[in-house]
């Protein structure tokens, strides 16, 4: 009888230990070793220009072979900032970038004039006579690769972000403008090749202990965060691979205020 009681006590203790451990993991999902995932809305401060000073959120497009600090940048005649070298961004219907979920491109994505209809993150903005905008998508529109939803991690005021799903749309064209960059999945494939590769990946991971293939490359976005005020900045550069602007580079600067909220439902 005593043995049975001890055994039950031991089992209960083990269960309690496991339970505590899982509970701890759950509570640590957003905070790990000082790193804190910021889940919610990064509300954008509208881009503005006063003289030569640009504030808020903006975008530049660097020409091939150019330098990120000195250019040459594409001159957008529709923008008043820095002689058109910068294009000011205005927050979209959602107020800005949501992490932990996607803000996908609508269907249809463009109107008859090629203007982007994606209006959640930023408001469509004129760029060379045609409005461009931004969305984040589970399957990247240009590379056709599955990408993670936007993730921003705060480490004592320093931000690192996975914005691989960040995509710009303009004039019936889509350009991945994320950081890190998704690995392109648009190369020609023989019939059945995709299924064969998927089966091989499964086998190699399950039986040969091969590491899963990386779906992104390069570094992510970086920035700053003030936990007291919620103000943030996020910056990154994104080389355009493929399409009509192959070799050009996008320079993105977002700033605004972070508003914590729940994780967006999957596939939203």
């Amino acid at each position, binding site marked *: 009888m005593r043995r049975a009681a001890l055994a039950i006590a031991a089992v209960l203790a083990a269960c309690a230990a496991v339970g505590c451990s899982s509970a701890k993991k759950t509570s640590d999902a957003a905070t790990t070793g000082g790193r804190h995932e910021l889940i919610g809305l990064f509300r954008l401060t509208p881009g503005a220009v006063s003289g030569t000073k640009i504030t808020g959120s903006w975008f530049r497009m660097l020409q091939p072979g150019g330098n990120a600090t000195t250019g040459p940048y594409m001159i957008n005649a*529709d923008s008043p900032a820095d002689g058109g070298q910068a294009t000011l961004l205005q927050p979209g219907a959602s107020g800005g970038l949501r992490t932990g979920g996607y803000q996908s491109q609508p269907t249809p994505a463009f109107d008859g004039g090629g203007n982007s209809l994606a209006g959640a993150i930023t408001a469509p903005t004129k760029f*060379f*006579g045609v409005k461009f905008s931004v969305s984040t998508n589970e399957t990247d529109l240009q590379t056709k690769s599955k990408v993670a939803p936007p993730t921003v991690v705060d480490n004592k005021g320093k931000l690192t972000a996975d914005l691989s799903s960040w995509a710009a749309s303009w*004039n*019936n064209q889509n350009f991945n403008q994320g950081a890190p960059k998704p690995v392109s999945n648009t190369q*020609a494939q023989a019939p059945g*090749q995709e299924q064969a590769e998927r089966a091989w990946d499964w086998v190699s991971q399950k039986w040969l202990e091969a590491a899963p293939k990386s779906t992104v490359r390069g570094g992510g976005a970086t920035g700053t965060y003030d936990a007291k005020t919620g103000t943030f900045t996020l910056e990154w550069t994104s080389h355009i691979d493929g*399409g009509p602007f192959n070799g050009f580079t996008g320079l993105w600067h977002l700033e605004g205020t972070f508003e914590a909220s729940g994780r967006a439902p999957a596939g939203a």
Partner: protein
Amino acid sequence: MLASEVPSEPLVVLDLPPAPPVTRAVAAPVGRPKAPAVALLALGAVLVVGPIVGGLFSKVASGKQMIDRFAPHMEADALARYRTDLATMRQAVGAVDTIYEQQSVAAGRFPGLDAYRAQAGAIDRRASTLLDRVSRAEPDYRRTAAIGGLDRIPFLVVLYGMAAIYGACVLLFGGRRRARSAVALVVLASVALAVYPFVSDLNRGTRAGQRMLHSFASFMTHGEVRQLQDDFVVLVTAVGELDTGFRAVPQTGPPADDVAAVVDGWPRISSDLASLVGTINDNIGNFNALGDLDTLTRSVGVSGLQGFPWLLVGAGVLGAALSVAALPRRRKET
């Protein structure tokens, strides 16, 4: 008196002649011609391994992808629209020159327009040349695109190779009955392989494909894409000035209409140009892969694409002949 008591007569001893030996007809020996069976085995192995080692699957898939992606640009209305775009740009630059002259616009006031006016002739020539080449390649493109099941041809070759290997193995090591059915299978597969180029229009299609490659070669390069991008930068900057600062310059009559036409049409023009440049850029790799396929047999003086259908016909005829020659048969009595 009991019957058993009747005295029995002794048995008569028969003296029979010895029986003649039983003889059976001796079957003629069955011959298994080894050489054709081994040759069939080798042919099968080459047809299975060759496409895999030579990257035929990926090269053909690349060609198919390039053809599919160019489809929207090869439509007659798309080509006509590109010509209209060029005409609109051409008229606009003439109009801008007129307005500059009429209004004595100083050089340097609109640097983007100045650059465009200086380069307009060269940009127009390059764009027209590109469009001419694309248009000229259109009939060959159509014939190439009409090849049925282009990306499945390597599978056909490998499957045929496997059938040949199976048939050869049965002919070398299997029973006589199975040998007949194996030969039937190989002959059937051979006919399918040899006939396929004619049924799928592969013969005409690959000749057209070779000419299409030749036509595309002049613009399917990174240098061409870079040049088109440079031209695009000049154009967008100029149109941007036309749509903003240049509006302050008084404009009347036909020149004003021509300037308005290019500004209003710019979303369509830039979309067409961006789409075409993007398609060229994204298919340079596919074009090169198809080019590799064509140069595969260049060392023996034959275009790979042109020779390909005849390779299938030749392999089919050879396989059928070898399998029939390898069929086990009785040797004639001497």
